């Protein structure tokens, strides 16, 4: 049954991907990409990867769509006719697709108990986590502790991407006509229905973000997902109440501080481990009891991840919005 459902979803995914390529209107393409992300998220969920599914739904279908739309507001929403030959591109794609298809033939069957995924470090993680870290969600233990270096790298990828966007767009205010400025600062204040519902929901969205952040040790969730959800709540606020009000709540300087501060918090936890006699990102030495030390470390680095992701996403959104059209 699960396989049937998976095949159905993957077929829909292929149809959506073809539709994205064929769409001439970029607005339609962005919306279809959101649908594609949602389909991938459901697929991840079918494979029991709830953490990844939550990330894909929050980042892929939620925040990316909003960021694409704010980017579209700065440009036109029609695709330009391609200048190069399409035939060559199709040939390259077909060859690459065939190579990838050929490579999948060498992979172990889905769910094969003898595949490297099931026999390498996976069993060790599952067996040792209750003893070493003692948190129910093994994914968070792997992400935060065993593979802490990788996650540190991811945080710096997010941080670098944020710096890149801010360098390209500039984070200062662009001079605009008074009318334009008022429209931007007003947001949708005159439009009552979304505003009332939004005001009702935003606190709960942010509360849910905090729940996802701090419940990541027990259920699906963690810093990346929570950062995206909290940023989504704040973006909703900015859309409803206007840029100016949103920037009064969290000023640009604070956002930049959050971008750097989260990554800094993560690194500091790593260096604190070194200073207390362990390796870099070894949390066991943070407390007399190594298990409590691991948990403290994971909670701190997850907080760092959440702070950086929230700051970066909001800074990028404000950078786009400040350009106006």
């Amino acid at each position, binding site marked *: 049954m699960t396989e049937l459902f998976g095949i159905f979803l993957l077929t829909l995914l292929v149809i959506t991907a073809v539709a994205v390529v064929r769409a001439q209107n970029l607005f339609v393409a962005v919306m279809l990409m959101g649908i594609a992300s949602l389909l991938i998220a459901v697929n991840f969920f079918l494979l029991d990867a709830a953490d990844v599914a939550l990330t894909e739904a929050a980042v892929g279908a939620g925040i990316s769509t909003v960021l694409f739309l704010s980017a579209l507001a700065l440009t036109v929403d029609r695709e330009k006719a391609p200048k190069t030959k399409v035939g060559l591109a199709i040939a390259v794609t077909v060859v690459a697709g065939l190579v990838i298809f050929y490579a999948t033939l060498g992979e172990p069957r889905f769910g094969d108990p003898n595949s490297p995924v099931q026999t390498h470090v996976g069993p060790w993680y599952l067996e040792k986590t209750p003893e070493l870290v003692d948190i129910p969600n093994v994914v968070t233990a792997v992400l935060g502790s065993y593979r802490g270096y990788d996650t540190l790298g991811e945080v710096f990828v997010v941080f670098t991407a944020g710096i890149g966007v801010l360098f390209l767009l500039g984070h200062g205010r662009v001079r605009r006509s008074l009318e334009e400025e008022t429209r931007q600062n007003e947001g949708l204040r005159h*439009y009552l*229905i*979304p505003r009332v*519902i939004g005001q*009702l*929901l935003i606190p709960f969205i942010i509360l849910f973000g905090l729940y996802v952040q701090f419940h990541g040790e027990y259920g699906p969730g963690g810093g990346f997902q929570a950062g995206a959800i909290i940023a989504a709540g704040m973006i909703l606020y900015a859309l409803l109440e206007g840029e100016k009000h949103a920037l009064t709540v969290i000023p640009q300087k604070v956002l930049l501080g959050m971008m750097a501060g989260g990554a800094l918090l993560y690194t500091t936890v790593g260096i604190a481990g070194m200073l207390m006699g362990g390796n870099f990102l070894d949390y066991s030495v943070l407390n007399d009891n190594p298990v409590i030390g691991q948990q403290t470390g994971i909670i701190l680095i997850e907080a760092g991840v959440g702070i950086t992701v929230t700051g970066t996403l909001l800074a990028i959104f404000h950078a786009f919005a400040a350009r106006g059209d």
Partner: protein
Amino acid sequence: MTAAIDIASWILLTTGGLAVLVGGIGALRMPDLYTRMHAASVTDSLGAILVLVGLMLQGGLTLVTAKLAAILLFLVLTSPTSSNALASAALLAGTRPMGDRHGPDSGDTP
């Protein structure tokens, strides 16, 4: 007792699924944006409510039911709001409903 709850939840889930199907067909077949939105809203309102209540019956008095209730509350609040926002955005952008005799391009909608 369990059988009765099961039957009730199956009925709810099946009718919910039917409502989603009807909404999908309507969204494809209706002639203009506003009638399409009207059809799609069957999915949002009736379909979602029936399916979620059906699932709540399966969940019983547990945390799962509480979470489903929260989702239901969220959907009941947000989907009419987004429909309203979509319809007024379309109206602002100049899309006239079909059969509207007062508009500048009556009945001539993409």
